[in-house]
């Protein structure tokens, strides 16, 4: 019984607030270290590609951000579902806190993709299934942020946002499998769970380090953001007014 209690304790915003600060600090530190290692490897350690030359190096930003853009959406949808079913306040705050990071990741994936597409394919943008579904993901993030921001009653805003997030989940497998289901200009997956990877070992290691760096970054900023959201939503409670940083 006590084990159950200690786990559920952190679903209360008051208990999670200090924990989020600690997690945020650790994740930010990890992100800085991994980014430094990952970027150094991206530019100086990973070998030149046999076909695309140096230009392929944008993959070390492009793929991690594209993965994060899909993964963050799934995490948000998970929290939105939990919030909808159990009426827990913190889960809706988590979904809200992740949204800007997800939108930024999607934007980076689209933007670096355009920079990569122009020299390699010969086009900044094409309306193939992979690119279009990723653009729709960007609109879903923007739509969620706008919808939640436009409703003053937070409970109603959370519920509306959650429904939008859950409906949009359909898009994630479409993005992921688009290159398999249809002929696209975008090439197939380089790294897949079932078929392993088709890139050089050092290239793959670099990409994975960059991916973990992006993970740590996303966790860090989401934690700092959720702290702000908690303070904003709970500003009338006693525990907030007793915080040393608020009393000052």
């Amino acid at each position: 019984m006590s084990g159950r209690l200690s786990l559920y304790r952190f679903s209360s915003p008051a208990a999670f607030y200090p924990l989020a600060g600690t997690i945020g600090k650790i994740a930010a530190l990890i992100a800085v270290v991994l980014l430094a290692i990952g970027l150094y490897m991206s530019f100086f350690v990973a070998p030149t590609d046999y076909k695309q030359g140096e230009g392929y190096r944008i993959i070390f930003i492009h793929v991690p951000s594209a993965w994060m853009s899909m993964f963050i959406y799934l995490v948000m949808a998970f929290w939105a579902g939990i919030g909808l079913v159990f009426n827990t306040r913190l889960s809706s705050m988590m979904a809200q806190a992740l949204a800007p990071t997800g939108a930024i990741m999607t934007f980076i994936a689209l933007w670096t993709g355009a920079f990569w597409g122009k020299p390699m394919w010969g086009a900044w943008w094409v309306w193939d299934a992979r690119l279009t579904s990723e653009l729709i993901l960007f609109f879903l993030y923007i739509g969620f942020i706008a919808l939640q921001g436009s409703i003053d009653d937070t409970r109603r805003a959370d519920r509306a946002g959650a429904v939008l997030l859950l409906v949009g989940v359909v898009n994630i497998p479409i993005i992921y499998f688009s290159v398999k289901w249809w002929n696209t200009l975008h090439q197939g997956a380089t790294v897949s769970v079932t078929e392993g990877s088709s890139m050089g070992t050092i290239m793959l290691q670099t990409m994975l380090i960059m991916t973990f760096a992006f993970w740590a970054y996303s966790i860090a900023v989401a934690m700092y953001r959720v702290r702000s959201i908690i303070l904003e939503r709970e500003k009338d409670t006693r525990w907030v007014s007793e915080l040393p940083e608020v009393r000052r």
Partner: protein
Amino acid sequence: MKARHKRLGFLLVGLVVLGAASWLVFNALGNNLSYFFSPTEVAENKVPADHVFRLGGLVQPGSVERGEELTVRFEVTDNAHTVKVAYTGILPDLFKEGQGVIAQGRMGPDGVFVADEVLAKHDENYMSPEVADALEKGHQKGIADMAKGNKPL
């Protein structure tokens, strides 16, 4: 049955219905979401006549002829069928014999596909020139000319 069990049930049923609906939609759309047609589909007359479409495949090795004023003629193949393509303009850097391309244009009356845009399609393999070289040596001849332009840096 508690209220939250009910909500969970609604949520799960909703997701299943949504998934089924989108599966049906995409099943019905089928190949219409594909970005290009293959030479085989051209040979089977599955492409729109008198209409712009995209043709995708590999550039047939040994088929590229450069004419005057940026005009290029080459053949696009999927190893089953081949389509002749004519294009005037600047080709992307990755355009090479044996490399994937997607050309947009329409079928001429003489059976030559007249392209007004050619994009290069690359695959999902990334490796160092040394590794590519070693692989190529293992293959030897036949496609050996593909590696010519890729001396180890």
